[in-house]
């Protein structure tokens, strides 16, 4: 097991170095894409600022708490962009070209191999923007208590959920060959959880927490850290995330068996 993990790490590092050298071929472009991502990430906090400047804002959340929420979201989706999301489009690319066979013949975990080809460095900028906004809000709100521990746990859960979604989209690419438009599912989910769950009624809250637990990527970590939700509920929220993640792995393995390498 340890040997396998070490090997995964090694492959991942090699993939990373390859991607990095490709990026550096166009340095000016790399720089502008970074600026573009930062601009894009700042829209959410800016819109929040304008909303809070013109009204009482979102029920139960003051502006600083909302910033914390935004920081969590930008960090998680940035991490997804950098290290997780690529798995769905890499799979799709490999399938469209009929090249998945090459990966299948490698004596190694297929998913780990695909991950090693799927890093997008630009996403690291977003991870940093998220970290800075989160840190600012945490310092301003003096949130240094014991809640940081469940917060960290929920952040890990958030990444597991995003991983699950990407693996499901990758699996869909194996079934349907072309899934370009399905990628927008992730953006729609992001939109749905772009503001605290408290804006919704019980039905949608339940759906986004227990059926498709997308709210773990934004609401739950921020709400627990800001002391807005009891810890007992927060731990309960982890269960659907774990089920969702396991489901994605099962689906991946099932669809891989059906793969016919036709290309498309």
């Amino acid at each position, binding site marked *: 097991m340890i040997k396998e993990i070490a090997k995964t790490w090694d492959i991942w590092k090699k993939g990373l170095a390859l991607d990095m050298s490709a990026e550096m071929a166009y340095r000016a472009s790399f720089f502008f894409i970074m600026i573009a991502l930062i601009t894009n990430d700042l829209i959410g906090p800016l819109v929040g600022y304008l909303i809070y400047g013109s009204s009482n804002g979102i029920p139960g959340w003051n502006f600083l708490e909302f910033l914390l929420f935004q920081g969590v979201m930008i960090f998680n989706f940035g991490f997804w962009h950098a290290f997780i999301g690529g798995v769905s489009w890499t799979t799709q690319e490999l399938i469209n070209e009929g090249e998945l066979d090459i990966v299948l013949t490698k004596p190694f975990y297929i998913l780990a191999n695909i991950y090693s080809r799927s890093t997008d460095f630009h996403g690291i900028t977003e991870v940093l923007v998220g970290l800075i906004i989160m840190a600012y809000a945490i310092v301003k709100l003096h949130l240094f208590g014991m809640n940081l521990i469940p917060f960290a746990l929920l952040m890990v859960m958030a990444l597991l959920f995003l991983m699950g979604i990407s693996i499901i989209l990758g699996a869909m690419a194996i079934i349907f060959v072309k899934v370009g*438009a399905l990628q927008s599912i992730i953006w729609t989910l992001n939109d749905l959880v772009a503001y605290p769950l408290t*804006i919704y009624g019980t039905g949608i809250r339940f759906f986004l927490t227990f059926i498709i637990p997308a709210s773990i990527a934004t609401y739950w970590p921020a709400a627990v850290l800001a002391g807005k939700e009891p810890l007992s509920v927060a731990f309960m929220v982890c269960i659907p995330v774990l089920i969702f993640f396991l489901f994605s792995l099962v689906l991946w393995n099932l669809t891989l068996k059906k793969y016919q390498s036709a290309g498309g």
Partner: protein
Amino acid sequence: MNRFRQATGLINMNIKQAITWRFNFLTSLFLYPITLVMYYFLWKSIFAYSGTDIIKGYTFPGMIGYYVIQMVVGMLVWVEVDSHMSNQIRKGKMTQKLLRPLAYLPHNLIGAIGIKSIEVVFYAIPVIILGIFFFKIQVGISAIYFIPIMLFAYILNFMIAFITGMLAFWMTKISGIISIRRTIVGFLAGAFIPLSFFPQSFQTMSSYLPFQYIQYVPINVFLGKYGALAVGKLLLIQAAWILVLYGIYKIVWKIGINRYTGVSQ
């Protein structure tokens, strides 16, 4: 007449291309209204929490109307001419386009109208109908003014994108710059939140810039916030901005095209 036939041919070609992507259209038609649901609950809770009927000139139904129509306007003014230009310049493929009988800019502009006409049928009209039934948006007679305003808004955004695209004469990859253009123009055009939420000084500054005429003004024209006279004035301002941008295009194109070698990089 010959020119007319060229133009209709181009439009037809682009309609055919757009139809082959119908799966994308269907998915977005299904997914985008979900975002509207989020805006509905967001503003419902903000209005309730603030205990007021009007925020910055918008009632709750007015605000939902704003987001529904923004979705239509945002889709209709969406341009990709800068990414096409950047690809064609980088791969040396612009040469064949330059040899066409119609000049490069009108060729692209007219071609895009074909795609837009498909989007009106498959996207704009369904979203407006959804908006009327589910979100109870009011469509008045002023919606007629929306058509010319929208056409000018599109040309305005097209010109901004075209000027951005010309940067590819000097730089190999401009995808980052294109993305910055999208975000900043969108934000200043009121794509995320109505401009009346911005500080007063910012709104004053914004009235001297072309961006609000791309989304904020067309949306509010649709929602009936302007009379006939005001719409006439807005059209004139849009036309003036298009002329200014056309002047910039002429100058930059003249310098830029001399740098184009047709060799791919």
